[in-house]
């Protein structure tokens, strides 16, 4: 078995903001585990896809969630007519056959789940499967990448110190206005002035971070709004549908944000 299905054939669009591509290539060269930090919708996942394509390695993504157990990552025994059969989990797949394993939003998983990666992310580079009595030495191509939204950081949800310190990190933020406008224009298929206007609107919502919003509007949201406008929806309605309504349920914040968007146009 190999991971052909996990290879990315076409180049995913990614607009570099700084030196992140070179940094990641260097990190991959020494198979250093990487952590991508940044708010939601700023391009972390797109970046990993782009790098997997660039490095021509398969990419196994796992969206982490609260109920995730270690077996969901490493695998479990299933039953068939003869008896039990071992079934590799996504992490084990990547370790065994060589690929980039991407654990998205790792803080969502419980801390005791994430310790299974410890042996993989230091110089041992191995994955012990206790239930199967097997130790897998990581394939030379294997690399672990996690993403992590510092906005969630709280006493209740955070990475263990021992987990954090195994990773190199790339910090993602929303790109500078001109670059962000370029991205929005490209992805949504709209012209630059409109994209710039959307970026100004996004800045309004990002001002509200910590004052009623947990996060401002992401680049992804702007692309959504742009796509709606490209299909003939008016800018005001598009912002309402793609930005204001999804981002908050609080009527006061909706009103304030709606009025601020109104002021931008």
């Amino acid at each position, binding site marked *: 078995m190999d991971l052909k299905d996990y290879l990315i054939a076409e180049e995913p669009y990614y607009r570099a903001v700084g030196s992140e591509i070179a940094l990641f290539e260097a990190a991959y060269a020494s198979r250093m585990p990487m952590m991508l930090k940044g708010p939601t919708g700023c391009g972390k996942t797109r970046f990993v896809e782009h790098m997997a394509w660039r490095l021509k390695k398969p990419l196994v993504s796992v969206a982490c969630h609260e109920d995730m157990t270690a077996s969901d990552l490493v695998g479990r025994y299933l039953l068939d007519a003869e008896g*039990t059969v071992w079934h590799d989990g996504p992490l084990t797949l990547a370790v065994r056959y060589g690929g980039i394993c991407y654990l998205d939003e790792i803080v969502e998983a419980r801390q005791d789940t994430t310790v299974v990666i410890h042996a993989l992310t230091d110089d041992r580079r191995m994955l012990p499967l206790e239930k199967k009595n097997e130790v897998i030495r990581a394939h030379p191509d294997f690399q672990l990448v996690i993403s992590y939204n510092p906005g969630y950081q709280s*006493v209740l949800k955070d990475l263990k110190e021992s987990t954090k310190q195994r990773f190199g990190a790339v910090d993602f933020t929303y790109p500078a206005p001109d670059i962000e406008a370029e991205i929005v224009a490209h992805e949504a298929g709209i012209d630059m002035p409109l994209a710039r206007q959307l970026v100004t609107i996004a800045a309004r919502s990002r001002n509200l971070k910590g004052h009623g919003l947990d996060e401002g509007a992401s680049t992804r949201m702007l692309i959504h709004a742009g796509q709606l406008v490209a299909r003939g929806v008016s800018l005001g309605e598009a912002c309402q549908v793609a930005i204001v309504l999804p981002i908050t349920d609080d009527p006061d*914040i909706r009103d*304030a944000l709606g009025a*601020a968007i109104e*002021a931008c146009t």
Partner: protein
Amino acid sequence: MAQADIRAFLTEVAGPDAAARASADYLTQEARRHIPAGRIAEWVAACRSLEQAGLGNAVILAYVRQSPVVARIAGADAAIALADHVKTIAFTAGRAAAQALPAAAAAAASRLDSADRYKAWLAVVLRFAPHMKESVEALLRHTDHILSRLDVSRFEAWTLGGIRIAGGDKERRRLFFAFGDPAAERSLLRESGEVVFSDLERRLKTYLTALWRVRVAVREAAVGVGRPIPRRASFDAGVVRMPASFPGVPQAQANDLFRAALAHIAAHLMYSGPRFRPGSLKPLQIALVSLIEDARVEHLAMRDFPGLRRLWLPFHAAAAAGTVTAPGLMARLSRALIDPDYDDDDDFVAKGRRMFFEREADWEDPTISRGIGNLLGNDLGQMRVQFNAKTYVVEPAYRDDNAGLWDFEDAPPEDMDVAEMFESVRIAPKQEDEPEPDDSKQDNAPDTPINKARPSDSTPEEEGVPVARYPEWDYAVAQERPEWTTLVEYPPAPGPAAVVERILEGRPDIVNRITALVRSARVSRPVRLRRQPEGDRLDLDACIDAVITQRHGDTPDPNVYMTSARKFRDLSVLVLLDVSQSTNDRVKGSRETVLELEQEATALLAHAMNEVGDPFAIHAFCSNTREEVRYMRIKDFQTPYDNMAKSYLAGLTGQLSTRLGAAMRHAGEDLRNQMTHRKLLLVVTDGEPSDIDVQDRKYLVEDARKAVASLSQQGIDVFCVGLDSGGDSYLTRIFGRRNALQIDRLSSLPEKLPMLYFRLTA
């Protein structure tokens, strides 16, 4: 005969001197004018019945004076019946209230102008009087003010609202009906159907944050009896004062008006430079410089946010017509500067417009406002049009009074008119900003806490009530001494509640973290329960185990299902604050005292608990020998966390000693009655338990330890936050190692306390 009868009576009541006789004459006439001759005898009998009831001359005179007014509008029956109502009120609410009733009745009759409505009003007063005995007088005295804004049914709603808001607390009711509580005026505005600023405050502040990333402190400008209603917003030294409402503005527009006003002020804050010095400018010039500055900052704001024009423009209603007056021309100029489609052929307006737009390249520079305004002021001055600085009000209504643009501090304007121009629209600071001048509480002035420590200084009003006796543990004989300590509850002294608001505004970082934690704490999260005997899904791992066991030939575990259940919060928290004398010490390396830090921490904690919705109480204690362990209830489980609680929190002062055990036992009594699964007592103390009648240092420590033990037997968790860096040993002794937290750096208390709460209750 009747006339003589009245006169005889009145002279008797009023006294023998000449003035009294004259007024008796006048009253006689009044009575005869409004009360039909056939009923005069009844009316005099009513007067006499008041005399017989022993209510005193003041009450009788009030009735004699006012009842003819009632008779005029509501009829003689109502006027005569009023005497009985006066007696009823005297019986329920005392003589002062009885004396206020006739005048209130007369005012109500004239305001409502109908016998039916008057009767409805009277019925409301009589119905509510027994529920607000101490405040009946205040309600009656303000009747005229209230009825000038509300009709009878809304009067009823407002009164009932006051009783509800106070929730059985006499002091609060008194404050409300005396309009000492801003809630009174606000609810009056709300009942009268105005759009009230406080309803919009949050969304408007958020709006400004979205646009400019500014957080402005907005206060509602004071309104109240006998104060002119502020007509314009104002800003000064970073504080914006907003009228509570713009009377007469239709509801649909009021929303936008508040928004436009705040956006305009924010434009000043963002784009106006340092304040102008008035120098030798005339009032007219000052008004024009302000006007140009208004237009300048609005244009700069519109460069960034073109949509603001749509917000501001509808309020510019000036038209190029009508008589030429200075305010009229200025309103037209204002419009000309913002509205490109506006035509005005007036030379002055055209010149102003030209001058302003010629300098478009220099708009970033605030000094151009002064230059242009100066010249225009001269021009307008030479046109000899009327300008009265005292009555001038900035137009349109969303613009502020511009007092924040000028710096009168160093150079008081030579021309008093200038100052008066601002005075006329100036909004007085909200009363809440200063401590209430309350006679009964004068001894509580916050700067004399040490004096207050002496019991002799307490005024009768703040005498405590002994409520319970508690045993104390004597470790030397290993025995409880029954009924050893007396717990005395003292009413807490109110302080300025705004202090608490300021604490929250001053620590936005912590408040934000709290809000985030609150959210995750509040939602009842689904928890997956594995290996259940029944459920909606198969638990794969359990199934596999079961089948493996089966193939081994053993009996499999039947618990192979999985289900999810929601985890609810079910706990109550009582925060017990140590407010002994030592809390007045300054914290090392900080200008704050321990008590101030405690207040700050408690304010943040209370904010968090209030948001989460856990039932919580805040109590404070100090002690003066075993005979007097003082206990103050800042907030109880059943009372809301509102301005009153905040004001009590702000009013705490440090005094006397720390008899911890007794206070904890008393707090335990309260917690024990809470019907929640978990009960948490959170003690915040700054030192070792001590009291002046105890020499042995170990004695009170051991007693407190005993108290903690007996509380945990009752299912109450006790946790202590110690603010004494050397306190490790005795705190651990009292509370146990796991249940005491030592805070080394005191200044971190405000952020640590709420976090601790979340950790303890997660």
